[in-house]
C-alpha cells in the first residue's frame, strides 16, 4: 500500500511536502515523542487540503510558522521559549537511554525487580525509623524503631504492621498493571518520600552520638531518662567497625586506672564513645550524684546497658563492675560492694520482671 501524495496543482513554491517540512522545523523544539504524535499524518492532511483547494497552501493556511503556532496553541503545547528545558531533558534522556543499553547496566536493571520485595520491607522499617526520629523523642530505637516511645513490645507489632501494609501496597500496585496516571504519580511521589525518609534515617543513624548521662542517686538509680542527642559527631569504632563503648586504662604495672582523662592530638576531649554496642544494646552513662561530676572524657566510664523486661519496659542492667571505681582489677563477675566512699554503688539486685530499681524510683 503506497501513499500517493497528489502533486500540488498550480505553480506553487510551497507544496505539501515543503510546507510540512517548514511546520516541522518550527516545532523542532518539542520532544520527539510529542512532535511525532502531533505531526503523524500531517503530510497526508496537507496534501488533501492542497488537492481540494487547488491553491498554494500558504494562500489557504497562512505561513508555515503561523500554522505551527496555531497547532501549538490548539494542542496546548508549550511555546518555543519555554520549551528549551525539554531540549536539555532530551539530551539527558538520550544519555540515560544509551547507558541503559549497556550490557552491565542491563543486567543490573533486569535484576532490580527481584529486589522489590526487599525494598517493600525496607521502606516500611526505614520510614518508621525516620518518623520516629523526626516526630518522636528525637531518638532512635535500634534495630527496632522505638515507635514513639512505645517500647519493644508495642514497637514490634507497629513495625510488622507497617511492613505488611507496605508489602500489600506494593503487591496491589504490581497486580493492577495499567495504573491510572494519577495513581502512578501518587505512587511515585509516595515512594520518593519514603526513599527520602530512608535517607534521612540512614544519615541520622550515622550522626547520632553521645549518651545523655543517667544520674545515680545513693538510694537507688535515677529514672532511665536517656536518649541520644542529635549530635553531629561520629562515634568511636574499631578498624573492623565494631563500636567502641568504653576505654579501660591500665598502668604499666597492670593496675586499672580510673578517672583518666583522654584527649586527642588537637587537645579535644575524647568523649564520643559509641552509645550502642555491637549487639545493638543501648548504653546509658552513669554519673554518681553525690560526687563531683566526671568529665565526659574520663575513663573508664560508668555505664549500664539498657535491657527490656517481659512487658517491654526499658530498664538498666547492672553496672559493669569494671567501670566502678576501685573495683578489683581481677574484675570478678559478681557485683562487689565498692570501697569507694564517693560513689557507693550498691550491689545490683537480680533483674526480675518489672520490679527494676529504676522503675521503683520513678
Amino acid at each position, binding site marked *: 500500500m503506497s501513499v500517493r501524495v497528489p502533486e500540488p496543482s498550480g505553480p506553487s513554491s510551497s507544496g505539501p511536502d515543503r510546507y510540512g517540512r517548514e511546520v516541522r522545523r518550527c516545532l523542532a523544539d518539542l520532544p520527539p515523542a510529542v512532535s511525532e504524535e502531533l505531526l503523524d499524518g500531517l503530510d*497526508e492532511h496537507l496534501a488533501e487540503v492542497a488537492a481540494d483547494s487547488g491553491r498554494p497552501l500558504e494562500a489557504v493556511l497562512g505561513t508555515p510558522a503561523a500554522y505551527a503556532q496555531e*497547532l501549538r496553541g490548539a494542542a496546548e503545547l508549550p511555546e518555543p521559549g519555554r520549551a528549551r528545558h525539554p531540549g536539555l531533558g532530551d539530551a539527558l534522556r538520550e544519555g540515560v537511554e544509551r547507558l541503559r543499553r549497556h550490557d552491565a547496566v542491563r543486567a543490573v536493571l533486569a535484576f532490580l525487580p527481584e529486589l522489590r520485595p526487599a525494598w517493600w520491607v525496607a521502606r516500611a522499617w526505614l520510614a518508621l525509623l525516620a518518623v520516629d526520629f523526626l516526630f518522636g523523642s528525637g531518638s532512635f530505637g535500634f534495630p527496632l524503631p522505638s515507635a514513639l516511645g512505645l517500647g519493644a513490645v508495642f514497637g514490634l507489632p507497629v513495625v510488622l504492621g507497617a511492613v505488611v501494609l507496605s508489602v500489600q501496597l506494593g503487591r496491589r500496585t504490581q497486580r493492577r498493571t495499567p495504573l491510572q496516571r494519577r495513581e502512578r504519580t501518587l505512587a511515585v511521589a509516595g515512594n520518593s518520600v519514603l526513599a527520602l525518609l530512608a535517607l534521612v534515617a540512614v544519615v541520622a543513624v550515622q550522626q547520632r552520638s553521645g549518651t545523655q548521662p543517667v544520674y545515680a542517686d545513693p538510694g537507688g538509680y535515677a529514672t532511665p531518662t536517656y536518649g541520644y542527642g542529635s549530635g553531629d559527631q561520629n562515634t568511636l569504632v574499631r578498624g573492623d567497625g565494631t563500636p567502641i563503648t568504653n576505654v579501660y586504662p591500665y598502668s604499666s604495672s597492670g593496675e586499672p586506672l580510673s578517672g583518666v582523662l583522654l584527649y586527642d592530638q588537637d587537645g579535644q576531649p575524647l568523649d564520643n564513645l559509641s552509645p550502642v554496642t555491637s549487639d545493638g544494646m543501648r548504653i546509658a552513662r552513669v554519673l554518681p550524684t553525690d560526687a563531683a561530676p566526671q568529665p565526659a572524657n574520663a575513663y573508664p566510664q560508668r555505664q549500664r546497658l539498657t535491657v527490656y523486661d517481659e512487658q517491654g519496659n526499658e530498664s538498666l542492667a547492672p553496672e559493669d563492675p569494671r567501670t566502678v571505681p576501685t573495683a578489683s582489677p581481677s574484675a570478678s563477675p559478681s557485683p562487689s560492694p565498692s570501697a569507694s566512699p564517693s560513689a557507693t554503688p550498691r550491689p545490683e539486685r537480680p533483674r526480675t520482671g518489672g520490679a527494676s530499681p529504676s522503675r521503683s524510683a520513678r
Partner: protein
Amino acid sequence: MDTTQLLKGVLDLAVLAVLDGRDGYGYEVLRRLRAAGLDDVGDASVYGTLRRLYGAGHLSSYVVPSEEGPHRKYYSLTPSGRDLLERSDKTWRGFADTVAALLDARPLAA
C-alpha cells in the same frame, strides 16, 4: 465581536459534536465545522484540537487506506469523549442562556 476568541472556548465542544455518531478524519471534521457555519475555524486549530483530545483519551483513532488519495486517520468518540461532550453541552447551553437572558434584560432592548 472576534469570533476566533469565542471559537477557542468552544472548539472542543464543536469538534466532539461533529464526531458524535459519525467518525471522521481531520479534513472532514474541518469541512463539517465550516459547513455548520463556523467559517473562521482554522485548519491547524482543528488538527491540534483533534490531537489533544486524542491524547487525553477522548478520541480513538484508526487509519483507513484510501484508493484515490492519502491514508486517512479517522477519529471516533470514546466513552470519556462522549461524557465530555454531554457535560460540555450542558455547560454551553447554560452559559449561552445566561448571556442571552442578560442581553434580553436590557431596558432598551426591542
